[in-house]
């Protein structure tokens, strides 16, 4: 796991994104036990109902709820070390994933033009919920919840390597997806 996060962190640094909203918001990565840092889910297109849902809390605890159509359905729980949490937050911030602008990405796709001659059917709907802090005039911050979603993320990232925001979202999704089958997970009591 640690190795995975390090790899992701290192890979994150350099991509300049164009399809980002410029709100001045920064990623908020609270480190208290009850605070949600990330909610990540992927819902397959071919089956009705929800997909797996990952929740990572500020103290490193994370839960995975596997849906009924998967082996090991139910809630599982494990914990990240402090260093791993730090790396995760750095990775999310480096990608500026909280500023992902779906409308801008769709526009970039249209601008890229072209018709795709390969297809991957029944794509997943990927959803990521993060928290941000927006600076206020008086120097204080307002905390906000940001929801990113995309259908067919892997296929679109493959088709459009020139859209940095898609690459960033796909890279983060790939790293978070790995938590669904993390070997440390135990059945939730």
């Amino acid at each position, binding site marked *: 796991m640690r190795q995975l996060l390090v790899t992701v962190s290192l890979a994150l640094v350099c991509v300049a994104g164009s399809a980002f909203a410029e709100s001045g918001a920064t990623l908020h990565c609270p480190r208290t036990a009850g605070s949600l840092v990330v909610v990540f889910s*992927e*819902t*397959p*297109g*071919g*089956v*009705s*109902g929800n*997909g797996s849902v990952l929740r990572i809390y500020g103290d490193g605890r994370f839960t995975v709820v596997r849906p*009924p*159509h*998967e*082996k*090991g*359905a139910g809630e599982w729980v494990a914990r990240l070390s402090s260093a791993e949490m730090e790396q995760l937050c750095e990775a999310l911030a480096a990608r500026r994933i909280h500023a992902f602008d*779906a409308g801008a990405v769709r526009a970039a796709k249209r601008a890229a033009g*072209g*018709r*795709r*001659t*390969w*297809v*991957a*059917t*029944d*794509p*997943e*709907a990927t959803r990521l919920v993060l928290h941000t802090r927006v600076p206020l005039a008086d120097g204080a911050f307002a905390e906000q919840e940001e929801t990113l*979603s*995309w*259908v067919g993320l892997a296929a679109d990232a493959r088709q459009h390597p020139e859209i940095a925001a898609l690459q960033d979202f796909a890279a983060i999704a790939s790293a978070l997806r790995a938590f669904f*089958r993390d070997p440390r997970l135990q059945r939730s009591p």
Partner: protein
Amino acid sequence: MRGRTTSGVLGLVCALGTWPMTALGGTFLFTEEGFEDTIMHPVGYDGTGGVLEVTVCIVPGSADAEAMVVPIGNVVRTVSALVPTTANLQLGAENNVPPDRVDFESVALHELLHCVGLAHPNLGVAPDVDDPGFCSSHEGDDGEWDFDAGDDGVSGSGDDRRGDDVNLGWFQVANNDPFSIAPVVDRSTYSRDLDDLPNDDSFAAIASRTVAAVSAVAPGTESVMYQGTYLDEAQRTLGHDDVAMLRLAMAGHDEVAGTADDYALSLRFGGISAAGCDIRVDMDGSKTGFAACQAGAVFPLATHGSITNAVVYFHPEAAWFFNDVSNATGNPVVPAFSMGGLAALALGLLGIAVRVARRRA
């Protein structure tokens, strides 16, 4: 016994090259990739008529390869038979699927139909779509969905009011009935143009179970290509819509049934093999979160494309149920055969006779 007799009659009708009864509007693969007006054909079709044989294999070394043999063999036979059915959803005690499992055969049938060129009749999982049951479409010039289920309140039926949304579904011109099939399936009897809709219909209807419920159709009828399956649900036979779309493609590049470029799709099961395969079946969790067909295509004509390569991927961590009952010798595909069906059959044969006579004249 009745099932066997029925199957014999159906076989005769298929041999004559038509299928006169119930089917409805669906879509083709690659409409979502910018080829809205394109009819897709399976791998190997180049405009030459005849029997088009497509070989399906299980990738050697794939997880559950042995367990996939019976259900994939069943799927191959089901698609080749081209028999449209009603009441093709078996739930709970009606099937042999455990309550906590997903029927592999049903999902494989859906994905294999993708790999020969069909797409979803419904919107399914799409951006900013809460109700997956509306007909496949694009948002139109305003860039926003227009979802109004019409007076019946059922999304996907013919009275949906969709504003400037662009229809992608093919419908039967005579009746916009997704639960019946035209006597002859080609461009003269199916259309995507909403101006061709009959009566007061405002959008293409799709064969979902909810539309069936308000259409006096047998309960539990749904197109195999409708996106979204459930636990403890078996859907192992084709709907009329599925057959209609396959037959529409089989009318060939000229889109006229009964001409030299028509083909008959014949799937062949190559077993667990790496050689001579047109469509491969594999368990690979890195390719899909559940199940998917990944396919490439070429587009030799503006409105026609052909699959060039295709793989069906399944996620090994899904709670699959592998049906171990072969349909090779039984009566797995028994269409509803009512008086209405017989009348439609007669009309279909009459239609063929008229077309043949005209051609000869």
